[in-house]
Structures are given as structure tokens and as C-alpha cells.
């Protein structure tokens, strides 16, 4: 009788162990299956976002004011799920990372994207602006978390500039004086002041906020600095012309000095390549159209210098590209 009882006990132990092992396998499989679905979702995200949105945006012909997509609108850019988007730019290569790039990423060719280095979003505000410097080079793509509030901090010397600075209405922007600045979570503060704000001022302003970024723009020197790891970064130079401030806007949408510097350099490298083509084109036009009043040689020389790095010639070249008396436009 005791042995029968012991036999039954043994039976139960055996059932529990075997059942536990089988259950363990199924639980492990469940987690693995979730991981698989997340990977599949990453590939779908890169297919939609990288292949359709970014690629199409870089090739769209838009007016000088650009084109914006507000995530709140019906046609807004919404994923339907939260995704960790990252942006990495190093050397001459830049990549959009989906969930840290474990499964899927989108390597950018000529596209220039300005965004924070890491954001977790289920929707995005997008703004496409053509960058003409002075000829069309590429479309700049600005991306932002829809929850971000932009604060442009001005003083007496920069008041006029900041008040006239055009930002798409898709973004929430407040233009304030420094002494009345008060920020909340998901803030991007852009200082347009004569002096870079003190580190202690930023730390005090940031307080316990976990999502607040700070950018300083010096319009006289055309430099931008980013507050990273508790201090201001090295100044990054950018280039703007009279009617195109694409780089300046890029500084507003970036939060990382390395990425911003890399983007500026990629855009400028592309500009120099295209300038070289236009320079040779001007030479060819000079052979096909021999009228002396067209000055193709002059613009060709300027473009050649521009292609070798004399970027301050941008306005000179723009003025030289004036097709008169039936001459052919160089660009």
C-alpha cells in the first residue's frame, strides 16, 4: 500500500518535471517569436520609412518654401507603433537606424537628414527643403518628434532675425526672450544670442527634464554648438547664403555636433561635385555657343574655384548666372 502511494507520488513528480520542461520550451518559443515579429516589423519600417518617405522626399521637386508633413494631419507620417529611430553620420556615410540597427537600417546616398541622434516615436513631423547653393544640390530633410516644442531664444541684436525666421507650421515654435524662458519635457531650445549661455544656466534650466536639448547659434560667425554630456560641444561651422539657410535650420533640428558637422560636410562635398560638372558644362557651352557676351568662361572659372573649396563665391556665381541676350543658363 505504501509502495502504491510512493508510486503515485513519483508519478506526479515526473508529470510536474516533464510538464515544466515542455512549458519552458513554449515560453522560450513565445519570447523568440516576439523577437522575430519585432525584426519583421523593423524591416517593414525601413521599407516604408526609408524606401518610400526618405528616398521620395530627397527627389521631390518642391518650391523654395519646401513641403511639410504634419503628423496630426490625415496624411501624416504615423507608424502605428513605437519605433526607436537613430541617425548616425561618420566619414562620408550616414545611416538611419531602426531599433539600433540590429536587423534593419537605411543607408543614405545623397539624402541629407537632420534629426536628433536617437528618438522613440510613433509618428514624425517631416519638412523637405531644397538646398540651392547657389544651384540645386539636394533636398534637406528635417525630422522631428511631434511632441517636441521648439523655443527660439532671442535678444535685442537678434530679435529681428529670429522674428523673421521661417519655420514650417508643422512644428510647434515659440520665439521668446531669455528672461522669460520656461521649458517642459520634450523641448528643443535654440539660442540666438551674442554669447554662448553658461553651462550652469543650461543645467539649471534643464533641471530634472530627461528630454530637453539645447543648441547655440552664433549668426555672426555662422557656427553652431550643441549641449551634450553636460557641456557645450566644439563650434561647428555652417554655410548660408542670402536666400538659403538650410544649414542653419539643420542645426535647429540636430542635437549632436558630430552628426551635424558630418551632414554639413556631406552637403558641401556634393555641392563641389556638382559645381565641377557645371564648370565643365559652362566650358562646353562656350564651345557650342561662341557669343562673347555670354561670359561662359568667367562663370566656368568661378565654378572651378568654388568646386575646389572657395565657398564664399556662392553669391558671385549666382550673379554670374544671368542668361542675357539669349545666352544659355549655366544652371
Amino acid at each position: 500500500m505504501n509502495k502504491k502511494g510512493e508510486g503515485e507520488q513519483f508519478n506526479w513528480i515526473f508529470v510536474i518535471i516533464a510538464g515544466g520542461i515542455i512549458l519552458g520550451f513554449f515560453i522560450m518559443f513565445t519570447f523568440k517569436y516576439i523577437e522575430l515579429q519585432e525584426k519583421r516589423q523593423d524591416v517593414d519600417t525601413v521599407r516604408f520609412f526609408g524606401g518610400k518617405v526618405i528616398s521620395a522626399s530627397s527627389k521631390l521637386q518642391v518650391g523654395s518654401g519646401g513641403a511639410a508633413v504634419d503628423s496630426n494631419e490625415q496624411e501624416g507620417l504615423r507608424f502605428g507603433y513605437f519605433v526607436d529611430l537613430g541617425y548616425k553620420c561618420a566619414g562620408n556615410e550616414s545611416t538611419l537606424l531602426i531599433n539600433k540597427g540590429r536587423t534593419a537600417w537605411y543607408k543614405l546616398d545623397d539624402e541629407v537628414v537632420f534629426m536628433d541622434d536617437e528618438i522613440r516615436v510613433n509618428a514624425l513631423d517631416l519638412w523637405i527643403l531644397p538646398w540651392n547653393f547657389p544651384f540645386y544640390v539636394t533636398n534637406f530633410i528635417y525630422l522631428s518628434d511631434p511632441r517636441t516644442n521648439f523655443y527660439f531664444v532671442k535678444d535685442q541684436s537678434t530679435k529681428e532675425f529670429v522674428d523673421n525666421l521661417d519655420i514650417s507650421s508643422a512644428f510647434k515654435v515659440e520665439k521668446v526672450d531669455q528672461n522669460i524662458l520656461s521649458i517642459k519635457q520634450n523641448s528643443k531650445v535654440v539660442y540666438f544670442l551674442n554669447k554662448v549661455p553658461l553651462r550652469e544656466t543650461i543645467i539649471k534650466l534643464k533641471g530634472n527634464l530627461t528630454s530637453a536639448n539645447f543648441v547655440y547659434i552664433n549668426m555672426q560667425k555662422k557656427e553652431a554648438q550643441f549641449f551634450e554630456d553636460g557641456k557645450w560641444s566644439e563650434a561647428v561651422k555652417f554655410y548660408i547664403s542670402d536666400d538659403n539657410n538650410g544649414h542653419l535650420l539643420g542645426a535647429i533640428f540636430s542635437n549632436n555636433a558630430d552628426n551635424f558637422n558630418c551632414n554639413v560636410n556631406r552637403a558641401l562635398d556634393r555641392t563641389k561635385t556638382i559645381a565641377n560638372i557645371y564648370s565643365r558644362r559652362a566650358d562646353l557651352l562656350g564651345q557650342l555657343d561662341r557669343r562673347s557676351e555670354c561670359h561662359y568662361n568667367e562663370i566656368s572659372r568661378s565654378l572651378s574655384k568654388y568646386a575646389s573649396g572657395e565657398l564664399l563665391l556662392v553669391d558671385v556665381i549666382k550673379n554670374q548666372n544671368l542668361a542675357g541676350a539669349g545666352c544659355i543658363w549655366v544652371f
Partner: protein
Amino acid sequence: MGILKTTGIIRHARKGQLQIQETILVIFIFIVLIMFGLIFFYKAQSTSIANDFKKFELDRVSVDFITLGDMPEFSCSKAGIRESCIDTSKLVVFSELINNKLYKNYYFDRWGYKNITIYTVYPGKNNIKCTTASADNCGVWDVYINKPSKITSKIIRDTPVSLYFPDKDQYAIGIMVVEAYNV
């Protein structure tokens, strides 16, 4: 009698032990089969996802070529405003610029092993290759030529394009042929 009873008990016990061992074996094999099934499923799905991503990258290259004419290296522009056509003077310049090693490497990173050629088809065909010397009367542009020495397969795609001749201020229709090589 007692011996018979004991023998019977022993036989039952052995039968019981055998049954238990049989059950353990069956369950063990069952677990192993499930384990193999789950591992196989996981590996197959992972491979399928990786292949999906590779296919996306290949498709991306195809799509990029359809929009080649929109690149500032080729697109028409007047007074800084882009038009939807390919400037033939840019094609001539580009096909000569690409011989420079620096630019060859730059575009190889983007396009890899490919041949891109454009032919005029309307209003008239012209089989003369375009160079700086023949730019005013030609109809074939070897835009990008990079064919590897060994090819495992190739894909050919073509698309109509609008061509603009700036010296004549005229438009024409052309075909852009792209041959993509796999090594």
C-alpha cells in the same frame, strides 16, 4: 502459494517499471521533436526576414535608376529652377568626368558594377557617340561604364527619358538602358 504471490508481484512491478520507462522515453522524444521544430521554425523565419531586407536593398537600387534623371548631375535647370528632363550637355560632361579616379570611386560606391547608356529615339536616331568634340551632333551617351571582368548574371532595365539639347533649345525622347552585373 506465497512464492507464487511474490513472483506475481515482482512481474507486476517490472511491468510497471517498463511502462514508466516507456512513458519517459516517449515524452523525451516528444520534447526533442518539439525542440527541433521550434529551432527550425526560428531559423527559417530569421532567414526569411534577412532575405526580405536584402530584397529591399536590391529593389531600392532599381527604383533609384528610374529617378536618375532627377539627380542634379543630369537634370535640366533654367534660372535655378529644375525641369523634368535630362540635360544632354551634362551627360557629355559627366561621361568624361567619370574617367577621373576620384569620381569613379565616388559613383562606384553608389552604383556598383553597371553600364548606363542613353540613346535618342525620337525625333530621330543618331548612332554617333557623344563626346565634347561631337556634342552638337550625336545621339549615344555612355554615361557610366563599369563592367567587371567576371560576371555571374546580369539584369537589363530600360526606361524612357526626356532629353534636352541646350544649344538648340530642343527636346527629344531617349531610352536609358541600365545593365546591372552580379559578380
